[in-house]
């Protein structure tokens, strides 16, 4: 879907269309969050009376997604750079991280962070919300690492040769030449990861975080009305993922200097 980008005048420069889209999407999201509880309150039983729980759960879902999303990009970048490092211990550590995280279920990782970690590291008892953020960030970070690494390795070798022959140091070459191009290539898979992350936050319900899926599930268990409760839950997820895709489309559009799309 390329919806929001297309509503701006064709004459607008690329950056302005992109910024306008991001701003509008953010406003839509805020408006949606503000309206959600108020609108759902008008819905018939069993949704109407539970409107505030739905609004609260949605807020928790967004909080989980944003916190672990930001942390996950940082972790992914660190792991990707480590995996391409010249120092073997860094490469091994990053390899182990990516291998173990991608090879185990997210639900087990969430349980592990919440139940097992305090036993392994005494004193490290995170709240259910923070445990979920940590587990989700670690999980998405591993997938981000592979996306970022693939993007960086797709940058033509001539680019770093040109930068190095101008006298730029390896770090400067990475920061100013290779990373901007590599991250642009990595952006579509990174966005996929964040959309997947938004949906994966529902697994936080396993350790009792009262996020959107948990609210929906509790309500259907209490009312024995699975259709309206789960349709409402799914619809809210769908609206959130749609807004997220609009923002990512706008970012991609901004970075698309060559205007291939």
């Amino acid at each position, binding site marked *: 879907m390329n919806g929001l980008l297309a509503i701006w005048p064709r004459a607008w420069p690329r950056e302005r269309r992109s910024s306008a889209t991001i701003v509008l999407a953010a406003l839509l999201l805020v408006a949606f969050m503000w309206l959600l509880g108020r609108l759902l309150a008008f819905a018939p039983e069993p949704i109407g009376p539970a409107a505030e729980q739905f609004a609260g759960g949605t807020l928790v879902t967004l909080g989980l997604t944003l916190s672990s999303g930001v942390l996950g990009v940082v972790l992914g970048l660190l792991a990707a750079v480590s995996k391409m490092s010249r120092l073997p211990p860094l490469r091994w550590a990053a390899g182990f991280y990516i291998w173990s995280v991608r090879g185990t279920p997210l639900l087990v990782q969430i349980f592990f962070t919440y139940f097992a970690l305090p036993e392994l590291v005494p004193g490290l008892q995170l709240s259910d919300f923070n445990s979920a953020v940590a587990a989700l960030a670690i999980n998405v970070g591993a997938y981000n690492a592979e996306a970022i690494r693939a993007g960086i390795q797709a940058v*033509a070798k*001539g*680019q770093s*040769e*040109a*930068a*190095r*022959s*101008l*006298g*730029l*140091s390896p770090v*400067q070459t990475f920061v*100013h*030449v290779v990373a*901007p*191009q590599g991250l*642009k290539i990595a952006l579509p898979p990174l966005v996929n990861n964040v959309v997947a992350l938004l949906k994966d936050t529902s697994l936080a319900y396993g350790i009792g975080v009262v996020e959107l899926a948990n609210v929906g599930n509790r309500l259907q268990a209490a009312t024995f009305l699975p259709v309206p409760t789960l349709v409402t839950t799914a619809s809210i997820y769908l609206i959130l993922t749609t807004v997220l895709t609009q923002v990512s489309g706008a970012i991609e559009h901004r970075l698309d*200097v*060559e205007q291939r799309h």
Partner: protein
Amino acid sequence: MSHLHPPPPPETRQPLIVAEGVNKHFGAAHVLREVSTRFFQSEVAVIIGASGSGKSTFLRTLNRLEKHDSGRIVVDGIELNDSVKNLDAIRREVGMVFQQFNLFPHLTALENVTLAPRKVRGTPAAEARRAALELLARVGLQDHALKHPHQLSGGQQQRVAIARSLAMQPKVMLFDEPTSALDPEMIKEVLDVMKDLARSGMTMVIVTHEMTFAREVGDRILFFDQGQLLVEAPPDDFFDDQRNDRIRAFLGQIVH
């Protein structure tokens, strides 16, 4: 004589680059065999030879984009080895122009030219910009400063790449087949910029297939064959009085 500037007598000149007994292997292939030569201040040396003869590889060893296996390469008094400090010092002084231009696609022409002076030399932004605009004017692209590489023709991109190298005020410029990826009608604009550069006294080492250009601009022709530097000679001797059968055969295949 068509030389753009007469070289001073050899004994008075200091060599800027010295290569002694340079060897290089790619796996089992022995791509450079005991190559020895010197490049002097303000000299324009043109390297020719069939593809696979080692000429580009040799050029790339001069700023260590390729490591040599044995022998010595000394640039401006600094030996090229695994010392990172040496390497960065050398690369600041040695400009390189590539066959595929290798402009940074996410930056404008102007930003391509200012990046290295700002980050490596610490030149203030305004000053780097002013110098870059001057260089872009010198290569005839003052009106294209704010365009991105994909908005420029191949010939224009290569001229930006030359300006980008010049911005570091190198002591020597290496050209690796700078016109081989260009459409015929764009070759001249790039060669004209290079002629200007030669006229200004820039030290240049050029790998090319442009024989007319080699003859007009070169002070010395180096002919590579199967990894060996077979012949070094002034252009007139090389092209007119060629007794070596391999070179005659090579020149016979080139369309003039």
